[in-house]
């Protein structure tokens, strides 16, 4: 049976693809999972970050991985500014308004990108784009292995941030009891903006990890945003380790589904798994009961 030979390579490939999903979902789990901001602009901001990496490479010759220290602060400032200056002001603290504001932001960003950079598919060529690591009969793409390592590192960093720092405590406090947090002197607006900024900074990393192997167009965010929402809910709202596991599981499910059911039908596997997990564990894989 041919597909049996491919089982291990396909599983490893799924893990590496899932790692990228996990990085995108890590940012979203902070924004959506912890603060319950449904950020429809997540995909559009990922696209913006990917264009950032693309132009850093084509205009200044900066390698996508070396662009991480540039993209992270840039995206953080953008996220912080958006939350403080646009989302919080326009939504007046109402969840349904946040939904509309982020949707509006997504439309504006997408169309702006279309206007500025046209719908041209852009891709960069790096010396290591075609590099592979050979483990026995299994060939793994080097950029994807880097993404897997990065996803684990970022998950641990986020987990440390949330459990060991004052900011993490403040974020958790605001998520649990907003008014209570405000009463004990936490600057809620600042905490919201910090969380949003950190979540968007994550997209900066994701863009740097994606671009050596993927293309960028103004629509590229759509390919990832639905998966990211699925990962967040599957892993458990607000759980960083859950987002990592969720991403990896979805990557493997997609890969094996594609292998056995065909690439078109294989996508069903993701949502079947999603429904099953929610049926038997409504809080997600690693989510806590509120």
């Amino acid at each position: 049976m041919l597909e049996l030979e491919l089982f291990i390579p396909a599983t490893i490939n799924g893990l590496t693809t899932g790692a990228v999903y996990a990085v995108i979902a890590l940012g979203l789990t902070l924004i959506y999972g912890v603060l319950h901001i449904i950020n429809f602009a997540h995909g559009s901001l990922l696209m913006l970050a990917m264009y950032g990496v693309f132009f850093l490479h084509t205009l200044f010759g900066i390698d996508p991985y070396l662009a991480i220290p540039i993209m992270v602060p840039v995206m953080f400032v953008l996220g912080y500014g958006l939350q403080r200056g646009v989302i919080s002001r326009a939504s007046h603290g109402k969840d349904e308004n946040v939904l509309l504001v982020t949707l509006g932001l997504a439309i504006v960003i997408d169309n702006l990108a279309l206007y500025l950079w046209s719908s041209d598919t852009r891709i960069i060529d790096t010396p290591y784009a075609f590099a592979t690591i050979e483990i026995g009969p299994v060939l793994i793409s080097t950029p994807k292995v880097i993404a897997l390592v990065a996803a684990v590192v970022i998950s641990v960093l986020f987990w440390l941030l949330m459990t060991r720092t004052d900011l993490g405590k403040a974020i958790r406090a605001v998520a649990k009891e907003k008014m209570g947090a405000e009463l004990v002197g936490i600057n809620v607006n600042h905490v919201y903006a910090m969380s949003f900024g950190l979540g968007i900074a994550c997209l900066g990393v994701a863009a740097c990890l994606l671009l050596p192997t993927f293309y960028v167009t103004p629509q590229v965010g759509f390919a990832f945003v639905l998966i990211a929402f699925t990962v967040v809910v599957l892993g458990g709202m607000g759980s960083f380790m859950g987002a990592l596991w969720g991403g990896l599981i979805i990557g493997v499910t997609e890969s094996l589904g594609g292998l056995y059911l065909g690439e078109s039908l294989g996508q069903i596997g993701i949502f079947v798994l999603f429904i099953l997990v929610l049926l038997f564990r409504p809080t997600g894989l690693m989510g806590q009961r509120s």
Partner: protein
Amino acid sequence: MRKKVTAMRQTKRSSKATSRRQFVSGALGAMIAGTASLGFPGTVRAKTTVRIGLVHPVTGFLAFSGSQCRAGGLMAIEEINATGGIHSMGGAELEAVLGDAQSKPDIGASEVEKMNEVGVAAIVGAYASSIGLATTQRAARHGIPHVVDVCVSDAIVERGLQNTFRFGPGYGTVARTAVDNLVKINDAAGRPAKTVMIIHEDSLFGTGTARLLSSALPDASFDLVDVIRHPNPTRDFNNIVLKIRARKPDIIIPANYYNEYILLARTMSQYNVRPMAIYSVLGGTASSFKFLKEFPRTAQFIMDCNHWYDPGHPAALALRRKAEQRGLYFTYELFLSYCATKLLADAIERAGTADREAIIEALESSDWSDHFMPYGPTRFVNGQNQGARPLNTQILEGDIKVIHPAEYATADPVFPIPATVQGNA
């Protein structure tokens, strides 16, 4: 016929009941016409415009191809207006009404509704087969002539729609030509290739092309080892390439859109999968100057059976220069849409009116030959241009060369690709 009789009756009725306003405007019109014929400056004559709808997917996953189509249509309109517009209508200018199908058939159909409301005389579109099916159907409801620029599904011209005219070939013709030419290329090389694998996208275009190839290839003595379909967008091609590595086909036939094609080609390069030939059928990317410029190493030796222009035609070369001066790639989307728009303009010229029914009649009897495609003069039977056919191209020495048929060939095919670049599979 009945329609015409009713229209004549209506004309008679309305001529009996001429209102004062109609009389005054008619008299004024006659006065202006009279003055103009006496040598009054031409500027006094109000130049009419004919509205042409251009509906393409300029956003969504087909955005690149849709934008290229739109650019081609607009270049044709610009050229026609610059050379005096529609002469039979007193130099009437063409005005583009732009529609974005957002890569979704239902949106394409609603764009046609909007175009109908603003009174377009005809429509050119809609690049993708699935969108074209919807736009032609909706245009038929309003009697709007619809010239199809790309849309290769044969269902486009098999529904008996009187308003639909496809300039380019359908996938039936393309698949037959592709298999015939593959046999010729393989025979000429001493029949080294025996096994084939098809990788196609899962919408109407890819599925239909793959179905036709799947039935024709075994008849041509090729062993079809697998047919793999994938959605749009596909984020990762590793699994598909793993399957290709495992099945080791001699020839790989991709039939998909640009973004997926480049991911597939790059992943194949990554895994060092280099069969005897990558032989695209309507692969799009394989005969794209953009792909060639960005990935010369990956693109080398890829063959394609696709829409292509007569490589020696001066008008094609002039349009290519013009497109490149504007920073555009000279892709099949651009030049097919350009030709489709010019075909429509020719019909309007011969009809001498913006009346939809008259344009449909002019298209039915079209014998337009002022184009650079290898089709000969247009002749429509059930809405399909009978002379439309694809050409075979191969990327050689950093350029796209025509390798089949002989009358258009600019190079001999390189098949199988040199052993030094062949890898697994």
